[in-house]
C-alpha cells in the first residue's frame, strides 16, 4: 500500500485582528428609511447616558473578500471527515454525513422557521420530530423520545435529572444520593451526575476489561439512585452481563440509563429494552450521520420507558386527530434542558439518514462497522509495538482501545508522538479519555463509511510510523513536518501569567511580537 505524499495547506495566516485596516467594511447595514428618522429621531436619545456604549468595540475592520479568504484558509487548516480517512477519532463515530441532508437542512422551509410559530404553520417540522421519535422507539425498544438535549452530555444530564425527579416523586430524593458508572464510560457519565449533586461511584474493570460486577454488587445500597453506563464501553468489548448489571441496580431501587451516544455497531442487533434499561440516548451526530460541526450543534436524543415518559423535558410532540401538536403538560417533567425543542437541523438530517437506509440499511451499517473494526484489530495487533489490551482472542464491536505501551518502552515514542506524525499523512489519531487506564492509548473506530482500500491506507501509515519509531525515533518525535504548524509550547496553557484566551489578553500579557 502506497502512502500518499500529503502536505496540509499552510497559509501562515494572521490572527484576524492583524488584518484590520481602519475604515474598511465587510458588510453594510441597510439604511433606515427617512420616514422613521422623522418619527423617532436617532433612536439613541431615548437611552439614558449610562446605557450608551461610549467607545466602539475594538473589532477589526476588514473588507469582505479578505474576511472570506481568512476563514477559507483556516478551513484548509482543518481536517474534516470529508477530506480524510477519519477512523482515528475513536468513540466519536466520524462517518459520512450525506450532502443531500445538508441541502435539506439549509432549505428556508427549515432554516427560516421560528420555534414559536403557530403550530398550523410548522406541521412539517413537527411531523419529522414525531416520526423520528417513532423510529428511535423501534431501534431502542423504549417508549418515547425527546430531542431537546443538545449533545450526549446534555442527554446524560437529562437522565441524571430524571433519576433525581423520579426518586423525589417517591419520597426518596434525599436518601438516594449515589450514581454508579464505570471507568470506561464517557467522562460525562460521571461529571453530569455530579452536576446534579450526586456522589459518583466509579466501578473499575477486571482483567477481562469489563466492569467488576462483584464490586458493583458491593457498591449498591439504599443510597443508590441510578446507573449511567455505556456498552460496549470505550474498549469496544460487548458486556454480556449487561442485563445482570441493570438487574442489580434495579433491584437496589435505582434507575438505569444507557449511554448509547455511539450505538453504531449494535443498531438492530441488541437494544436498550432487552438489556433492562429504563432510559437511553442516541447521539444523532454519531450513529445517525449528522455532522459534528467542530463540536456541535448536535443532538442527544433521549428515550425512556413508559413509566418514565411523564418525566421527559417538555414539550413533546403528539399526534392528535391527524394534527401534530406540542404538549407541555407532562405530570413529572424535569422542565427543560435546552431552549425550545433542541437542534432541529440535526433531527431533520437524522430523519433523512434513517429514511435512506431503512431497517436493512441500518443493520448493514452496523454489521459493516463491526466488520471493519475487527479487520483493523487483526492488522493492528501485527504492528510492531502495538497491542489490544483485554479480552484476547475475542471480537470487538465498533471500536478498540489499543496501546503503544510496548513501543514507548522500547523506543520512547509515545501515543502523542505518533498522533502528531499521523498528521503528516493526513490522518487523525486520538489517544483516549482520561484517566489513561490503558497506557499510551489510542482508539480507532472505522464506522461503515470507509472502503477497505482507505482503511488499508490508514493502517499503512501506522505501520510506517511504527517502523520509524524503531529505526529513527527522533524522526517521529520531531513531527509534524507536513502539517500546519510545529510543536506548540505547552507552557502557555497552564500558567495564568502567560495564558491568553483572547487576542486582547495576548496583547496585554505579551505585547505585539511573538
Amino acid at each position, binding site marked *: 500500500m502506497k502512502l500518499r505524499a500529503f502536505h496540509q495547506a499552510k497559509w501562515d495566516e494572521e490572527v484576524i485582528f492583524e488584518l484590520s485596516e481602519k475604515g474598511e467594511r465587510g*458588510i453594510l447595514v441597510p439604511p433606515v428609511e427617512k420616514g422613521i428618522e422623522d418619527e*423617532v429621531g436617532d433612536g439613541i436619545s431615548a437611552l439614558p447616558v449610562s446605557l450608551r456604549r461610549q467607545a466602539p468595540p475594538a473589532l477589526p475592520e476588514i473588507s469582505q473578500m479578505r474576511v472570506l479568504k481568512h476563514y477559507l484558509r483556516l478551513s484548509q487548516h482543518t481536517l474534516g471527515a470529508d477530506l480524510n480517512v477519519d477512523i482515528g477519532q475513536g468513540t466519536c463515530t466520524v462517518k459520512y454525513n450525506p450532502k443531500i441532508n445538508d441541502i435539506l437542512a439549509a432549505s428556508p422551509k427549515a432554516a427560516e422557521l421560528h420555534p414559536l410559530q403557530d403550530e398550523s404553520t410548522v406541521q412539517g417540522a413537527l411531523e419529522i420530530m414525531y416520526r423520528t421519535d417513532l423510529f428511535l422507539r423501534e431501534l431502542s425498544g423504549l417508549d418515547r423520545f425527546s430531542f431537546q438535549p443538545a449533545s450526549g452530555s446534555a442527554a446524560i444530564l437529562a437522565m441524571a435529572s430524571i433519576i433525581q425527579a423520579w426518586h423525589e416523586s417517591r419520597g426518596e430524593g434525599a436518601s438516594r444520593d449515589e450514581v454508579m458508572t464505570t471507568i470506561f464510560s464517557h467522562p460525562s457519565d460521571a461529571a453530569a451526575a455530579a452536576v446534579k449533586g450526586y456522589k459518583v461511584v466509579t466501578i473499575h474493570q477486571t482483567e477481562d476489561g469489563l466492569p467488576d460486577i462483584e464490586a458493583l454488587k458491593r457498591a449498591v445500597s439504599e443510597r443508590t439512585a441510578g446507573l449511567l453506563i455505556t456498552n460496549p464501553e470505550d474498549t469496544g468489548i460487548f458486556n454480556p452481563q449487561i442485563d445482570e448489571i441493570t438487574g442489580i441496580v434495579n433491584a437496589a431501587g435505582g434507575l438505569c440509563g444507557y449511554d448509547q451516544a455511539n450505538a453504531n455497531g449494535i443498531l438492530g442487533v441488541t437494544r436498550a429494552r432487552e438489556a433492562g434499561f429504563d432510559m437511553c440516548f442516541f447521539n444523532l451526530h454519531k450513529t445517525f450521520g449528522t455532522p459534528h460541526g467542530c463540536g456541535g450543534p448536535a443532538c442527544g436524543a433521549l428515550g425512556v420507558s413508559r413509566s418514565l415518559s411523564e418525566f421527559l423535558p417538555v414539550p413533546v410532540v403528539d399526534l392528535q386527530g391527524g394534527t401534530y401538536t406540542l404538549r407541555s403538560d407532562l405530570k413529572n417533567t424535569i422542565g427543560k434542558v435546552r431552549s425550545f425543542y433542541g437542534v432541529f437541523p440535526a433531527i431533520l438530517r437524522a430523519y433523512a439518514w434513517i429514511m435512506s437506509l431503512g431497517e436493512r440499511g441500518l443493520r448493514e451499517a452496523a454489521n459493516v462497522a463491526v466488520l471493519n473494526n475487527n479487520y483493523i484489530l487483526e492488522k493492528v495487533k501485527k504492528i510492531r509495538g502495538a497491542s489490544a489490551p483485554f479480552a484476547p482472542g475475542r471480537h470487538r464491536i465498533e471500536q478498540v482501545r489499543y496501546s503503544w505501551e510496548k513501543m514507548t518502552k522500547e523506543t520512547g515514542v509515545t501515543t502523542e508522538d505518533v498522533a502528531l506524525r499521523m498528521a503528516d499523512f493526513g490522518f487523525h489519531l486520538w489517544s483516549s479519555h482520561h484517566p489513561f487506564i490503558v497506557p499510551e492509548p489510542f482508539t480507532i473506530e472505522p464506522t461503515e463509511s470507509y472502503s477497505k482500500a482507505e482503511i488499508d491506507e490508514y493502517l499503512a501509515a501506522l505501520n510506517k510510523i511504527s517502523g520509524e519509531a524503531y529505526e529513527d525515533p527522533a524522526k517521529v518525535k520531531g513531527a509534524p513536518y507536513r502539517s500546519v504548524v510545529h510543536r506548540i509550547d505547552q507552557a502557555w496553557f497552564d500558567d495564568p501569567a502567560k495564558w491568553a484566551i483572547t487576542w486582547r489578553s495576548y496583547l496585554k500579557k505579551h505585547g505585539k511580537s511573538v
Partner: protein
Amino acid sequence: MSDDKPFIHPYIPNSLPEVKEQMLKEIGVRSLDELYADIPERLRFRGRMDLPEPLTSEAALKRHVETILGRNRSCAEALSFLGGGCWPHYVPAVCDEINRRSEFLTAYAGEPYEDHGRFQALFEYESLMAELVDMDVVNVPTFDWCQAASTSVRMAGRITKRAEALVVDTIGPDRLRVMENYCRGVMSLAPVRHDPVTGGMDLEDLAAKFTDNTAAVYFENPSYLGFLETQGQRIAGIAHARGGLCVVGVDPISLGILAPPGHYGADIVCGDIQPLGIHMNFGGGQGGFIATRDEQRFVMEYPSRLFGIAKTAVEGEWGFGDVAYDRTSFGVREQGKEFVGTAAALWGITAGVYLALMGPQGMRELGQHILQKSQYAAKAIARLPGVKAPRFQSPHFKEFVVDFSATGKTAVDINRALLGRGIFGGKDLGPDFPGLAGCALYCVTEVHTKADIDALAAALGEVVR
C-alpha cells in the same frame, strides 16, 4: 432480512460481497454473525422493526423530505414579529459560506496541528466576542443562553462558596426552567420582583433578599420582555456590598450601541450568539457564551473549553491549545467543573465571521437601526385604540410588550386574525407571565422595512377594531 440480493448502499462501501468475504477471511471467521459472539442470545433483537421502506435513491429521498417540509410556512413566506429567545436578523452570505464548508462542518476533535484552523477560528471567536462584551475571557460556546446562564450561576456559587442565587422574575421562561433543573440538588434559585411600571428590578426586594448565602443576582439586559434595565450599577452595588457577584444575560447584537454589562458592574456576562449570523432553524441555531475578567478565580471555574494562543517551535508561528485543561471533566471526570463536550462550536465560528464582517461601525449602525425601527413600531402600534405599547415605561431595544387587554381581545384571538393576513404576531405572554394576560411580545429588527411595520400596524388596526 432474508433478501438474497446484496444490499449495496452508497454510504456503505464495504457492503460489496467479495470485499466482505475477503475481510472476513483476514479476520479468520466465516460469517459476520460470528463477530457478535459476545452478545448472548437473550440480548439479541431478532424481531423486525416497524420502519418504513427506505428511499435509497437520493432523488426519492429529497422529494419525500421536501414534501414534508412543504407543510411548513416559514418566516420567509410570512411577515413575522416573533422573538423571545430566537430572533430574525440578516445572515450575511459569507457566514453560510463558511459554516457549510466541508472542512469545518465535518471536523470534530482533532489535535491543534491538523485541526489548527478549528482552534484558530474558535480562538478568534472568543477574541471577537471579548471585544464586543469588553471582557478578557470568553468560552468556546455552550448549548445556548439557558445553559450559559445556568453555568454562570453555578460558577458564581463555586467562586463565592454560596448556595443561593437571586433571579429577576422577568427572566425568559425557558431560561428559568433550564436553570432550575440544572441547579436542583446543589443550588436554589429565588425570584426578585420587578417594578410593574418600569419593568426594572425592585431594588428594595433585592436588598431584602440578598443575604450572606447569596452567590449572585442574575438579570437580563435587554430583558426578556424587551425593556432595558437602567439600574445595573445599583444592582451590582447591592450584590458586591454583600460579597456576592452580579451576573447579566445580554443580547450581543445590542452591544454596538448599548454599554456592555461589565461597564455597570457585571462580573459574569452570558447570552446567546444566534443573532450573530445564524439562521433561526426552528430554535436550533442557539449557542451560549460566557465572559469574565481574566482572573484565576473566574477562569478556573469555567467548565468549557478555553482555547488559548501560544508560540511554537518555529519563530513567528502561532499555535493554539486548551487553557487549564485539568479543570474540565475531560481531564478529571466528576472532579472537574460541571461537564464539557460537544455543544455549538460551528455557531461560534459563524458568530466570529459575523463580527469580523460587521466591524465596529457595522455593530454600531445596526444597533442604532434596530433601536429606531423598534421605537417606530411601538409608536405606530400605540396609536391604535385601546392598545398600549410598550407596556413598560422604560426604553427598549428590539422587543417590546404590546398590551391588548383594553381591546377586549385576547392575544390568541389577535394572532389568529393576523395569521389570516399572513402575519405571525408576537408571542402571547399570558401563559408564562400571569400579570401580562392580554399582552404579546413583538420583535422588530433590521429585517423589517418601514412598509412591513406599517402593514403590521394596519392589520392590527383592523383586528382590534
